[in-house]
């Protein structure tokens, strides 16, 4: 009832119920704003469905992802029995797309997750400690900023050689520096606030201050920033496989599938486009969710 009322009142009046809800806490408000944001909720739903589909791939997928028959290679989309057609080795596309999502999501999320842990720790330490420690960490970060991200990923995984582990290692290295920077500047901003000074005056040690006062205030913005990186990681990770640097055949992975289907682009364009559509949808949804979260959390911008 209150929701409807708040929605129908003119824009100038919406502040009043918002203020009344204040005691329920900041995160409550964020959740409420996200729930009200149709585009973000839709994208969350799409991501959730995709996640369930790839987790339960063995149950949903009609065929074995590695077994094919040359006799039925490159069947078009909509062939009876092969809903999305078959690939260049006659393997069922739907099955391979479902299984491919597992590796693509893994390569998209793992590097960001690892970089989130390492980058935010280093960034918070640098931002909180200041002085020579800050200098050391931030100058090292600058060096990696001197490489365009794609180039760094290609350079490292190119030197290490192909493989999923090497690709994840290379991508992690790409995402640590931006996460250090954002964590450092957010932490330095919080550290300068009066209540941190007050906590220090009451005799709280640095670890208590970080745990009680800094972490709860910086983790949100850092997390939102990291979710925005997932979309980039997805594109780059699949891109490395597309170049032949990430996963290797016969593994199912969207970027690699896009690469092996490239020669079929001229006679079966729709079929060859399918893995790319999966990457695109995932990446745009992660971007939209990240934007929605950012909007819901930073009311001022």
């Amino acid at each position, binding site marked *: 009832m209150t929701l409807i009322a708040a929605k129908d009142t003119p824009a100038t009046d919406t502040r009043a119920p918002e203020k009344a809800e204040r005691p329920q806490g900041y995160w409550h408000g964020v959740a409420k704003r996200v729930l009200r944001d149709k585009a973000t909720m839709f994208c969350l739903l799409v991501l959730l469905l995709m996640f369930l589909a790839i987790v339960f791939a063995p149950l949903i997928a009609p065929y074995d992802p590695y077994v094919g028959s040359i006799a039925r290679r490159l069947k078009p989309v909509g062939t009876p029995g092969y809903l999305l057609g078959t690939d260049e080795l006659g393997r069922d596309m739907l099955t391979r797309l479902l299984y491919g999502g597992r590796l693509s999501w893994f390569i998209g999320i793992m590097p960001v997750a690892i970089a989130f842990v390492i980058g935010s720790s280093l960034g918070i330490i640098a931002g909180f400690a200041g002085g020579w420690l800050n200098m050391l960490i931030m100058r090292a970060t600058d*060096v990696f900023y001197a490489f365009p991200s*794609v*180039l760094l990923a290609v350079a490292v995984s190119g030197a290490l050689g192909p493989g999923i582990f090497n690709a994840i290692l290379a991508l992690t290295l790409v995402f640590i520096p931006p996460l250090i920077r954002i964590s450092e500047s957010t932490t330095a901003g919080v550290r300068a606030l009066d209540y941190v000074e007050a906590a220090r005056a009451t005799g709280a040690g640095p670890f208590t201050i970080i745990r009680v006062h800094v972490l709860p205030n910086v983790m949100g913005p850092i997390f939102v920033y990291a979710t925005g990186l997932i979309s980039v990681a997805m594109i780059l990770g699949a891109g490395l496989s597309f*170049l032949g640097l990430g996963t290797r055949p016969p593994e199912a992975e969207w970027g690699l599938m*896009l690469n092996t289907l490239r020669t079929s682009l001229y006679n079966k*364009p729709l079929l060859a486009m399918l893995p790319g559509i999966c990457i*695109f949808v995932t990446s*745009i949804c992660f*971007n939209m969710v990240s*934007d929605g979260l950012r909007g819901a959390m930073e009311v001022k911008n």
Partner: protein
Amino acid sequence: MIFYIVRRVLYSIPIALSVGLVCFLLVYISPGDPISAIAPPDAPAEMITQLRRDYGLDKPLPEQFAIWLGRVVQGDLGRSLSTGRPVWGEVSVALKNTVSLAVAACTLAFAIGTLLGGLAAAFRDTWVDRIAMTFAVAGVSVPHYWLGMLLVAVFAVTFPLAPSMGAGPGGTFVWDWAHLPFLILPMVTLSAIPLGLVARTVRGTVIEILHQEFITTLRGKGLRSGGILLHVAKNAAPSVLAVMGLQLGYLMGGSILVETVFSWPGTGFLLNSAIFQRDIPLLQGTILVLALLFVALNLVVDLGQALLDPRIKR
């Protein structure tokens, strides 16, 4: 101001040196003994020892770095293992093609991105804004190598309007009418990401400027919207140009995927072949040149921004 410029230029020197160090170490993170990439697989032990001495691989790492750096400063990036030609020669030819492509893509992204972002800001929260921003999000989220394939499928296969392979007659790109059609599809593909970023930056910056008091003053004294546009453009220019400058660098370093799709004979294509022939000197040299170019571009962007925007006094 002079002090800032000098400090910023001096600061690039340790950065460039560290970039060199990272590139130098690339050889050592690649699996196996670096000598195995140079020597034939059935080489006798004496020959390997000889080669090791010739290439200075028996010296301690810091000394090797110093020797390598000394050669690089003189423009000697070593020889490609697969072709035997000097790396610098290979890179400089490829670099011209990459720069042509990146500059073209950047210009296109700047033109359309500014238009979309400006329209979105002017018609904020209307359908114009929503459509423009959907385009922008799609631009930054699209796997551009896939977009390239899509454009090939549509504009080279279904409707044969533009060539989809290579850079035109002679194998390298030249700015003339015979080569221009070859530029179209790779250029459009490569412009997707910066287009989205520029549109978002322009929208954010313009909205911020429109909220400032001097705009109200200008409106109050009766200035027409054309005149206000001029003021907005002047104020938005530094941050938008900074984004553009950095994007140009990202495009030069990141065009490997697009160059692979279109067989564009640039540095990305070179990197690709270096990786698959395990041609480590070529890989190292190409990455070093691209990264140093990026460092230089960063420097130019920072200095340009400081010159354009008198408020920056760092």
